[in-house]
């Protein structure tokens, strides 16, 4: 399980940067807010790595909802004569020890994995955002108490805490998802709080206060819109973290019961055939790696964009 590194705050532009930007101002077309969005999208569109990563993620999400679009096989149909076939045009990922098409099982595994990831992320976002915003915005005693609580959560390595939760709740996709989600909360809370604290002290917030804006208005109109950038970056990064954590817990044997199989279970199932049929483990593993790598790349690109 990886640990998210909180993104650094936006640096203040130096005099030189400012001068260079302003020298480009005059001949740049005036775009306003909508134009700004369009320009950003165009800039992203010109990054092949970003587009490739995005396409892969969209594809995976699609497979989670309609796996039948991408395969003609039944994920549970066994076929003893076709066991452990190497990858071919009919079986892009080969077949497993029961002759089931691995590609199809991967696609159907997406549904479970994506579902678990979404549950984990929702928990992390709802709880983490609330903790972070409340803590950062109200400060004082509330902040001290909440952040101490987060410190304690951080003191227990997240996968171990997840194991404790799984022990208590039992095995299966949902308990695993909850356990992973709780593990991500502290990082989320911290990043959100740091961002809120940063934006809260900026001159434009002070200007809004001087202009008579209520704290609620300041929070909703200024602080939240200007803090969500790094939080979004972290959310994308944490999606990858959650996928790996869920796969790891499945591998340890705490996931969904067979024959349903998450990605982690699929990789794990192949370990008995490493010598004779290495692809049964390796191809699903590479697939998971590609998905997480894409998420990391998306997160990194978004972060650079925010600078």
């Amino acid at each position, binding site marked *: 399980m990886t640990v998210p590194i909180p993104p*650094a705050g936006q640096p203040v532009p130096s005099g030189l940067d400012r001068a260079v930007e302003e020298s480009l101002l005059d001949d740049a077309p005036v775009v306003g807010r909508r134009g700004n969005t369009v320009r950003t999208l165009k800039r992203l569109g010109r990054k092949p790595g970003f587009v490739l990563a995005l396409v892969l993620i969209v594809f995976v999400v699609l497979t989670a909802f309609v796996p039948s679009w991408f395969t003609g096989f039944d994920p549970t149909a066994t076929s003893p004569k076709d066991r452990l076939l190497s990858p071919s045009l009919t079986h892009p990922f080969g077949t497993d020890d029961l002759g089931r098409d691995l590609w199809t099982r991967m696609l159907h595994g997406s549904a479970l994995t994506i579902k678990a990831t979404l549950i984990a992320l929702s928990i992390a976002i709802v709880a983490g955002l609330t903790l972070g915003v409340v803590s950062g915005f109200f400060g004082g005693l509330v*902040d*001290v108490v909440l952040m101490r609580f987060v410190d304690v959560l951080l003191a*227990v390595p997240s996968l171990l805490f997840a194991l404790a939760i799984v022990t208590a709740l039992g095995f299966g996709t949902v308990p695993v998802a909850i356990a992973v989600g709780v593990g991500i909360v502290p990082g989320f809370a911290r990043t959100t709080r740091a961002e809120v604290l940063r934006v809260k002290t900026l001159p434009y917030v002070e200007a809004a206060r001087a202009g008579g804006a209520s704290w609620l208005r300041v929070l909703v109109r200024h602080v939240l819109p200007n803090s969500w950038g790094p939080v979004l970056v972290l959310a994308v990064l944490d999606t990858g973290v959650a996928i790996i954590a869920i796969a*790891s817990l499945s591998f340890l044997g705490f996931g969904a019961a067979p024959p349903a199989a998450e990605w982690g279970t699929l990789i*794990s199932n192949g370990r008995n055939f490493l010598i004779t049929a290495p692809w049964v483990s390796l191809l699903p593993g590479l697939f998971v*790696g590609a998905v997480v790598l894409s998420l990391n790349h998306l997160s990194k690109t978004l972060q650079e964009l925010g600078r």
Partner: protein
Amino acid sequence: MSRYILGRAAQAVVVLWAAYTLTFVVLYLLPSDPVALQLGAAGIETDKLSPVQLQAAMAKYGLDRPVLEQYLSSLWGALHGDLGTSIAKQRPVTALLGERIGSTVALGAVAGVLMLVGGTVLAYLASYVRWRPARILLTRLPSVGASFPQFFIGLLLIQLFAFTLGWLPATGSDGFSSLILPALTISLLTSSLLAQVLMRSFDDTLSQAYIVTARAKGLSRAAVQWKHAFRNAALPAMTILGVIVGLTVTSAIVVETVFARNGVGKLAQESVVAQDVPVVLAIVALAAAVFVVVNLVVDLLYPLLDPRIVHVPKVSR
């Protein structure tokens, strides 16, 4: 200064106590039927017992007492080095841990050395190399290393070094040669994390004004990086060490399972499968203690390494 150390140590104790309590709450209060869960670990199916038998079984494991009392006695025991008795294995938890901890410590130590060397060298090179393709490759490496599930990396290494090349044993826990692959698996992840943090830190440091001063003296880029950038970049990265040690502990669970090593990590996995609550609680508390101690040591060392901090008043919040 000594007041600061005492205060910081007291804070560490409080965090540790809170972590223990939190885990206890999760394990004893979260399950809908904690008694059935725990007796299940002993192979007793509660719904097949008569009320009298059930009462006897509960009394045997101390489950008939109120939760608060169970908590206090468990905490009292933990303070005296008694971590309870495994329900599934019917043995004291301390004995179980004692048998297994040596193998895990050895694994963690080797992984730690590999992590420090690998992460530092990678980050150092990535910020030193000027040739663009090499630089891009080096800066992307950690992200790749952190993108694959550890058990997969473990399987890959077994496939490559044990089965294909036959250099190292695939599984087991005897001798140094059996340590190499699992330690490598752990350090691939931890060194990726360290490298990422260090790279960012190097970036920040190298854009500081005093780097310009140093270069204007006519020092070579190598000298500037080694004498002026390295220490200033490494200092903030030290704070990630606690997290990395925690990560090493959790990695041990997965990696010991993959390589069939008889360590604390494997014990954790077995205990969760058996829902052996006292063992799980003990292992979580142990991991939290390691994390808290490492962070304490880092915090106490920091002022010795950074001249700007003479004593550390809490000003961050």
